[in-house]
């Protein structure tokens, strides 16, 4: 079977994210990294491959993004993907979640995967929904927030937490599964894998290569127009204590609680 893993480049968590006031879009400059949630999807693919219940011919990392997104693909490959596909085209800039999902689905069609895995959310946009959009365009079943995934033949048994407790769902492949971060503990890449990542095949494609209708993508063509960004109502900042002397810190906490009659 062939597994495609959708990955994304996101601003490094340690870097302050901001909105470009002139466009209302996220300023995607600054330090970037592979979306940490995606590492769980790559690890899930690796565990299926190593588990031996099915034969996995290939794990392919797929991303959409500017040229810098190559770094996220290198990281994905260092974590175990065999090769990667980079959808990059100026026409895609500013696409909303629906347009992005369409573009990714078109890219995936060319790969014809048996299983598409992705992380539960991106660290920046936090839309949680790209998997459902991709699945619909591929006419595949899908499930999000999966924390246990077993594959037997063409049948996936998935567990996930929904509104009323844990659900178990059986799904026939090909399918699109977004995994929760509790599904596994992603491994660290070996030095050798990091060094070798740039040598693995990387296919860069544009909208024309994967038959993306350019009138359906990009900021101006997106059906949800994110018009402006404004500041939320200010909330009074709380008191912050750096713990240096724990006895003193605890004394301060107790006094704070006592003052508010919480003891």
């Amino acid at each position: 079977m062939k597994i495609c893993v959708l990955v994304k480049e996101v601003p490094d968590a340690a870097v302050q994210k901001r909105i470009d006031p002139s466009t209302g879009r996220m300023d995607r400059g600054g330090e970037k990294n592979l979306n940490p949630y995606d590492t769980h999807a790559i690890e899930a693919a690796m565990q299926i491959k190593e588990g031996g219940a099915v034969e996995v011919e290939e794990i392919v990392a797929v991303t959409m993004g500017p040229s810098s997104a190559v770094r996220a693909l290198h990281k994905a490959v260092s974590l175990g993907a065999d090769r990667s596909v980079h959808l990059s085209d100026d026409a895609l800039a500013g696409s909303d979640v629906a347009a992005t999902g369409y573009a990714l689905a078109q890219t995936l069609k060319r790969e014809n995967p048996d299983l598409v895995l992705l992380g539960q959310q991106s660290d920046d946009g936090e839309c949680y929904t790209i998997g459902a959009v991709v699945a619909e365009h591929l006419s595949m079943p899908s499930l999000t927030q999966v924390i246990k995934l077993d594959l037997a033949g063409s049948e996936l048994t998935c567990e996930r937490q929904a509104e009323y407790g844990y659900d178990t769902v059986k799904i026939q492949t090909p399918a699109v599964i977004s995994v929760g971060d509790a599904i596994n503990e992603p491994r660290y890449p070996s030095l050798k894998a990091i060094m070798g990542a740039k040598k693995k095949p990387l296919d860069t494609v544009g909208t024309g290569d994967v038959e993306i209708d350019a009138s359906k993508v990009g900021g101006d063509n997106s059906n949800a127009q994110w018009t402006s960004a404004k500041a939320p109502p200010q909330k009074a900042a709380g008191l912050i204590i750096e713990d240096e002397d724990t006895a003193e810190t605890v004394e301060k906490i107790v006094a704070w609680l006592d003052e508010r009659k919480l003891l």
Partner: protein
Amino acid sequence: MSNILVYALHYDGAINKNSLGAVSEGAKLAKELGGEAHAILVGENIPQDLAASLGEYGAAKVLTAEGPDGLGQPVVDAMAAAIGSGGYKYALFGGGLLGFEVGAGLAARLGAGVAMEITTVRAEGGELVAERPILGDSSISEIKYRSEVGIIIGRLNAFEIVKGGAGAAPVEAISYEASPQSAQATIVTRGEQRGADVDIEGANILVAGGRGLGKAEGFELCTDLAAAFGGSSAVAATRAVVDAGWYPYAGQIGQTGKTVAPKLYLAAGISGAIQHKVGMQSSENIVAINKDANAPIFEFSDLGIVGDLNKILPKLTEAIKAKKG
């Protein structure tokens, strides 16, 4: 026609609270647009009176569609069929996991714009404008739709439940064609409760633990602290640690867990992701202990302690015991 179709999730003979909020919100917005709010339920043998009861929250009509419970794609099929028959300009969802899946799938099916985690919606010039806080709620974006149908997925607890008392709504059963992908998923078990039953909704003081506790045994620190507070106190948890099996599901705060508003919420080793925040932000006093000074939880804490909870919690427990004598 500017009608709004609202998805109503139901389980075990009751409508989900976030869906009741969405129906109330949809009714209010439809009135401003000069249309009606209709609700739709999808499931097996939907009770008529349950469907009709949505009239009390402002639904002018309730559609019911027979289909498997607990899966998203059959709802996409049913809602696409309803919207295809005309008259709907918006589809609205309350916060929750299934609403996200259905709303996103429906957007792809209809070629419609979608926005999620919406906290406020207003009518403006015959259109709806949605507001979404982004970047850890440090900024708010406004979303307008240029497609024929706009899809709005609310944040958990964003929409207020308003019981207008209009009485039972007419119920109409609709049929739809299931998509091929819907036939590829079957639900085996639903709503399994993992772990012991703990009551966190009735507690005045909640000590909540997250991944920062390091391991399941770390919860003993929270249990000890809650016991020191005594009275009406309990221990709660984040989704990540419940999924990891460290604490019972019944004690979970956040999007697929409980929403609480105790007098004191003490968060230990919790980063404060939006999905958690939406379940506890109405707490009267929020205290957070986290070793990461950049943790989002410090943005909405009344008292934040940057430090090692393994050092702080045991001493705090002792100090509270001593204070209370």
